């Protein structure tokens, strides 16, 4: 049975374009979906996702510092292709493609737990908190 593993690093690097350009052209490399340059936050007033300000970006990068120390992060940063002898194709995913649970303590002391589909959204929620009911439209 033939098993073959191929690193995608070269593939991804060759395709690495500025995010706006690559998404607009119809392709988003998996590694770009997790780059630090893709920092977004949910605006407290509009509730919409927007690019982070420099201050917000700095705060988030500070939050990420501890994670960078994780020994496994370098290994997991790039998807890894697998070929099976029976024709099946597999991919070992990355931490950016898993679900994240976040807990936020509200000003009244209550806790709210939410699950996010990507690390970026989870980290934005940690930094900014969830959209509270008081942030619902008021008029």
């Amino acid at each position: 049975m033939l098993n073959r593993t191929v690193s995608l690093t070269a593939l991804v690097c060759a395709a690495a374009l500025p995010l706006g350009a690559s998404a607009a052209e119809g392709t988003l490399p998996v590694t770009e979906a997790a780059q630090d340059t893709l920092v977004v936050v949910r605006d407290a007033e509009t509730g919409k996702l927007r690019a982070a300000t420099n201050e917000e970006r700095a705060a988030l990068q500070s939050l990420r510092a501890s994670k960078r120390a994780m020994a496994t992060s370098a290994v997991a940063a790039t998807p890894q292709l697998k070929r099976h002898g029976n024709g099946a194709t597999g991919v070992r995913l990355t931490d950016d493609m898993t679900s994240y649970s976040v807990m936020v303590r509200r000003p009244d002391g209550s806790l709210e737990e939410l699950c996010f589909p990507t690390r970026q959204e989870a980290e934005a929620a940690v930094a900014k908190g969830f959209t509270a009911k008081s942030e619902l439209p008021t008029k």
Partner: protein
Amino acid sequence: MDKSIKTFALRASVLAALCAAGASQAATIVIQSRDPAGVGFNDTTPVAPVGGNPGTTLGEQRMYVYRYVADIWEKQLASDVTITVNAGWEPLTCTASSATLGSAGAWNIWHDFPNGKPGTWYPQALANKLAGFNLSEGQPDDGSGFGNVDIKTQFNVNLGKTDCLDGSPFYLGLDGNAGTAVNFVETLLHELGHGLGFSVLTVYTGSVSGAVGYRLNSDGSAYQAVGGLPSVWEQYMYDNTLGKTWLDMTSAERKLSTTNALGLAWTGPQAVAGAAVTLTSLPVLKTATSAPGYAGYYAYNTASFGPSVATGLTLGSLAVVPSDAVNGAGCLAFDTATSAAVAGKVAIIDRGVCGFAVKAKNAQNAGAIGVVIANNQGGAAPGLGGSDPTVVIPTISVSQTDGATLKAAVAAAVPYGSRKAPGQVTASLAVDPSRRAGADALGRPLLYTPSTLASGSSVSHWDVSAFPNLLMEPNINSDLTTILVPPKDLTRPLLKDIGW
């Protein structure tokens, strides 16, 4: 025949029948720690047994919960291939008032394997079950030591410490009495659900807006606007507005569908059947009137101010506050005629110009006993934000369409009374026995597709309108149990729909 021989023969025949039918045995889940000495599962800090967890060190208690949750999942799933869950405790992002609790997900995915739908992405644990063997067996490791596992998990080793959701560590008991701590059983149960297949997984739904709806390509290197392979989920994701499944949509249509509030249903037969016996009847605004054709049920939303409302509340007779293109309906103190119209009644007021709470307070000052805000734009009934502790009458909202119907009903009812007592429309909060809370009009459970104002934007959960609360809603609610099947929950039915 000797009883033991008969029993053996019966078991043998049952086993043979199961084998002939391709039946799988109950799943086996192995927990594989990647923690170094003294950390996480290996933390030797002494602790007292808690809530049914007999561990006497922090590490022992953490592993006991993992094993407890894995045992729950083993009873729900069938597979001849061992499921391996890699687990570690690591420093994740924190502030004093918020924290990433942890994450989990399928660590390997496959397409075009034996017994799978061709050209379709599956999480490895499910792909292995369908194929009947471990697809990653013999694959070179990626250098991590766990590159071939089915599910990778990590949880926050610092939770509850200073500057990491201070004072709220994981509760490691099994009895749900988490108090101000974080219920680890439910959190892990939920996250392992994602890793086992409760996720659209390979369709991008993250924060890069331009790429939402893209599919992962066949070698897993990029999400693509055109092409790419569908997730095994997509066949059952039916958008009631677009009238098609995600399988038949363009990436632009899938993007629209991710924010089509209450518009995306799961059509898998197991979950639909389960919803019929699990979800309760839908809470609605119920109207009664003598005017033919105007009595009915209307979806409503609630306000962050005023008294809380619940099914069973009698609101009263409806009255209409006139529109005001300049100042906004209900934004100024009510004039004499309007005050007379709403006194002792529930005022229907169009949304716009001023705050919801302002409108409610003006109605209250005029003698109204309740308020219905009619949306002034398309979409569902909006949640009503704002604050005014002096508002003591109940306020709810309805959609623009339903608001127009209610106003028409008030006008239509007038002739069905006398000159001294014109016909009226009375309103109360009730349930629609023909609808289910968290399901579409056909009883199909809804996936979570919030509008942009809501937190998160994942379709990989049940909608938050489901009642009773379900394990796989985006909010981990405090009233959840560890039961994953109807009539308590819909987790296992969905997993069975995709092949478990």
